[in-house]
């Protein structure tokens, strides 16, 4: 039984990993874009982003998942997500990407704003363009500063993926829970915790390795 459960949970964990990694792939760059837009001097650009961030951070992710999946069908009488597992996964991914982009944006913004203005001015007097200054001088310093808060947020994401099951997205908790119905046992559900624990342990190690790697400058 233990082997059967473990194999089944591993399969479910692949679903968790897929949602986790795809969220990161999209939300890490999108968060940076939102941060840059939020800091724009043009109100027309910064105001909508600020509103979005307020809105997304001010409501539960659970609710955002439901609205993302059922909203379009309810409002426009058109389920844009299509039917079946693929559609539900796409809706969940969209909700996660938007949610995490907003949190990441605030982390990026904090990091960017913590870089002393003298770094930009040194770039200006050397005749560099704004793009060169950002990509060649500022960005790596920002990365170094945001590794700790980012790792915190990313480890939260590992566990937040379990929320996707409110719109019936297949992941590890879903799998664990199914054993209650099919076999009348609850321990597989508890057992899922071990998977989260090991994975976040690996992530923690990866982040401290990254921190160490960036330790060559101050």
């Amino acid at each position, binding site marked *: 039984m233990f082997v059967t459960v473990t194999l089944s949970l591993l399969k479910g964990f692949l679903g968790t990993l897929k949602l986790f990694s795809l969220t990161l792939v999209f939300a890490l760059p999108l968060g940076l874009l939102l941060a840059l837009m939020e800091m724009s001097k043009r109100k027309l650009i910064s105001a909508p982003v600020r509103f979005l961030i307020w809105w997304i951070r001010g409501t539960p992710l659970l609710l955002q998942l439901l609205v993302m999946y059922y909203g379009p069908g309810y409002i426009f009488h058109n389920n844009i997500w299509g039917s079946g597992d693929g559609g539900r996964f796409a809706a969940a991914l969209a909700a996660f990407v938007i949610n995490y982009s907003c949190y990441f944006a605030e982390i990026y913004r904090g990091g960017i704003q913590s870089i*002393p203005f*003298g*770094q930009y*001015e*040194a770039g*200006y*007097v*050397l*005749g*560099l*363009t*704004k793009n*060169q200054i950002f990509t*060649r*001088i500022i960005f*790596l*310093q920002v990365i*170094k500063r945001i590794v700790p808060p980012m790792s915190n947020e990313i480890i939260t994401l590992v566990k937040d993926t379990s929320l996707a099951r409110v719109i019936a997205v297949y992941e590890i908790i879903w799998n664990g829970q199914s054993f209650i119905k099919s076999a009348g046992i609850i321990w597989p559900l508890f057992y899922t915790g071990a998977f989260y624990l090991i994975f976040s342990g690996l992530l923690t190690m990866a982040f401290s390795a990254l921190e160490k790697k960036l330790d*060559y*400058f*101050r």
Partner: protein
Amino acid sequence: MAFLDTEHIRKSFGETEVLQDISFHMEQKTVLSIIGSSGSGKTTLLRCLNFLETPDEGIIRLNGEELFNGREQQKFSEAEVRAKRMHFGLVFQDFNLFPQYTAIENVMLAPKLLGTYGDQKAIEENAKRLLADMGLENRMDNYPHQLSGGQKQRVAIARALALSPDILCFDEPTSALDPELTGEVLRVIRELAKQDTTMIIVTHEMEFARDVSDYIIFMDNGHIEEEGTSEEVFYHPRSARTRQFLSSYKDEA
């Protein structure tokens, strides 16, 4: 017409007029020092020359080319401002080295990115020569946090020189250094003066300014209170305010 002409520069921050009608001239291969108490507008003037601030009024002309004219309400593109900046180099009070790059990478970064300073090899050789001139041949591969303040500032000077600016500006280059390290930076600047580098130096080091400068400007409250040769300003000041300012330094010494 002088090499650098600035005429009737004015600059306000809100209600405060930081620069009130500043005009001065300097020739190539000379050293101009700007002295004065904190808040007198020295740094702002230097920042205007480097286009880190835009004057409200006035004209800046370099080698006959009009870089700025406040009357014409010009809006320069980013590329135009960068081209104008290239005439000047600026060494900051707090160095502003790039922490993720070694000393030599700091010096090479801009020439490499600008693409008009020859190939990689030429840029590297030039950087090595400049750092050696600064007495840093053994420090080229150190990161800024591994360097003392004086060494950092010398890297910053090499970094500015790597772009061969027409005029190299210093904004209180030793104010962030303790007295022991001040000497090594001042020595390097003296050496540059000997090699006929055109420099504008904002400094609180009076003895140094007196020795190294061809011309001195004493600024007070946003205007030029007195100007003249080193000899004139330091030994025969005409203005009572200048005498008062200089005597405050003598008391200290």
